[in-house]
């Protein structure tokens, strides 16, 4: 029983982690940057 | 002479800035004819140099400073 519960918890945690990673990818954000600025893309200079 | 030959402690008045890729940026930052510049110090190997211009400090390579014609002043 406990095995199943833990399994479910892990699956939920994995989904949450996956969502976070996907969100980061979609929004072009990176955890390691910390501060927001240097990690957004530049809309004007085309670089 | 040009600013290139400047040594620490010397004060100069800018006479003119010759054509160079940096010309516009140098002038924009206040190095226009008539401006006083003081050479503060040099990095290891004597280059680049640090200047005081219009109450701020600016670092510049000597090759780039060669485009600035100056005249020594007291």
């Amino acid at each position, binding site marked *: 029983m*406990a*095995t199943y519960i*833990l*399994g479910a918890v*892990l699956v939920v*945690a*994995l989904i*949450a*982690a996956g969502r*976070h*990673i996907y969100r980061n990818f979609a929004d072009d954000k*990176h*955890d*390691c*940057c*910390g*501060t*927001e*600025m*240097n*990690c*957004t*893309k*530049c809309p*004007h*200079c*085309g*670089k | 002479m040009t600013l290139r030959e400047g040594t620490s402690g010397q004060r100069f008045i800018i006479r003119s800035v010759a054509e160079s*890729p*940096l*010309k*516009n*940026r*140098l*002038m*924009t*930052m*206040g190095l*226009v*004819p008539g*401006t006083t510049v003081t050479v*503060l*110090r*040099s*990095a*290891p*190997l004597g*280059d*680049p140099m*640090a200047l005081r*211009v*219009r*109450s*701020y*400090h*600016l*670092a*510049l*390579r000597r090759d*780039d400073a060669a485009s600035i014609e100056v005249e020594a002043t007291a």
Partner: protein
Amino acid sequence: MSSLAVALTGNPNTGKSTIFNELTGARQKIGNWPGVTVDKKIGYLSHQGRNISVVDLPGTYSVNARSPEEKIVIDYLLNEKPDLVVDVLDSSNLERNLYLTIQLLEQGIPLLLDLNMQDEAKRHGIRVDTEKLGAALGMPVVETTARSRSSIKTLLDVFTSTMMEKYQPSEKVRAHIARVEGLRAGNLAADALEEKIIEERYAFIDSVVSECVSVAGASSDLTEKIDAVLANGWTALPLFLVMLYAVFQITFEWIGQPMADALDDFIGGPLTESVTATLESWEVADWMQSLIVDGVIGGVGGVLTFVPLIFVLFFCLSFLDGTGYMARVAFITDPIMRRVGLTGKGIMPLMMGFGCAVPAIMGARTLDSEKDRMTSILVTPFLTCGAKLPIMALFAAMFFPDNAANVVFAMYILGVIMAIIAAKLLGGTVFQEKGSTFLLELPPYRIPDMKTVLLETWDKGKGYLIKAGTIIFAMSVLIWFLGNFNFNGMTEEMNESFLAALGTGMSKLFIFHGFDTWEAGAAVITGILAKESVVSTMGILYGVGEISAEAEDAVETAATLMQSGMATAFTTMSAVAFMVFSQLYTPCVTALGTIKKETGSWKWMGFSAAYMFAIAWVVSLLVYQGGRLMGF
């Protein structure tokens, strides 16, 4: 209730981002050097019932649209037409700061002048007659000290109460604009015209400044006294090394490491034991116990151990960033950097690479030439980022317990040296565009704002924690899975797992490097997804199995088990070779993605991945074989 759009503009390093953060509660990066902010950023707040949007713009000396930053600024101001454009000025340096002001006025952009850094101006005995200045230009003027809360309050009140319609360019400004128009109408050649206009602007500024600014008594300049030691001739470089070494001692010896050790003891000891005991008492299936203890705790815990090091290192770097020393580092290293075809200015984005390669690669935008930028992008990943730090710290602690800090320092230096050599090689072959330049404002030394330093440290450290909880967690589960299963289902023998198969394939490349085990091969593969995974993989593969079975006689904690596993898998020399390889090989996928974006080309991304792998392979081989020849 109307809304108000405010834009912050001004020279670099005048405090725009500081004001922006205070106003909106955002966490823009702040540093005491010019060119910190390279892109625009919007934030929101409300004051006296009005919704205010504020935009932080990159600092620029002018708006000639020559650099990407200048283009961002002028495009924004002309196209978005904010209700209020605040020109933030450094009050102790008005002459140069007013150049941008006058240029914006010529464009017909109405401004609110913010004379910032009042505290410093006062210290230098600089007094500005704001009434006169406002009248001379026909603009509202406020005085602020951005670091103080009350200043920000004042500024907000000004935002909501200023009627910009009431202000018209003064007679003086109109006369100036007429003179500039006159010059334009004349038949001067483009270059000469530009020169004349710049001189005209400075003539105007000089007359305004002489009218409105007085300096009482020349104060002794502390910055010059400090620079006489830190940025002068031959003492400068040794002192730079001493400074770096001190940061390392603080991080890996004095403050960070003891905390990391305590955390390691806790995770490896009490935590693992109590979790195992709990799982046992709940009668959880063996495989699930293994997944949680070996996989999650071994993988994520192994990385979390190093969090204190990360925090301490980020604190030190952020502190240095706030002092103004970074610009001096650029100045004193330019002689070296130019000899490899780069510019000292490149040091500033490069130093960000000790945190993470991603912002460092983006920061390369501030470099003047395309060649400098490309070179910087391609060599930055050689540096030891926060994710590689755990690899270095783990191996150093295990194989050089008496000398760990020095070994880690050596690895960091190796990364820097390889970056320099690679820049030289790229400059000689791939990029041959000639001559870079070096023009950099050296800001005054400042005492870093502790709030800024702590917030930034926390922000970056938090990012590391989030990463550990998400991607490293997911990777750990995956690694555990691959390490315990094969086509026949779960296996007792890890050597027969999927991961072993993968790792064995990779390990063939390292037969002459001394670390041709499948575990090391697997770590190399997972490390490309996120460098922390190298440590997770080691934690999972070497901290394994026995622990849950022998939890009763838990004298041996996970940590010591892992040590014994690793100690037999590596010799001292092959451990060094592995550290060298991990330090230099292919950037993680996130960094590769950033390279793709910043260079706009898959080709450069692929190049980066391949050449770094090749260099790492060769250098690591040389180190291993060289070491063996010398009898290690």
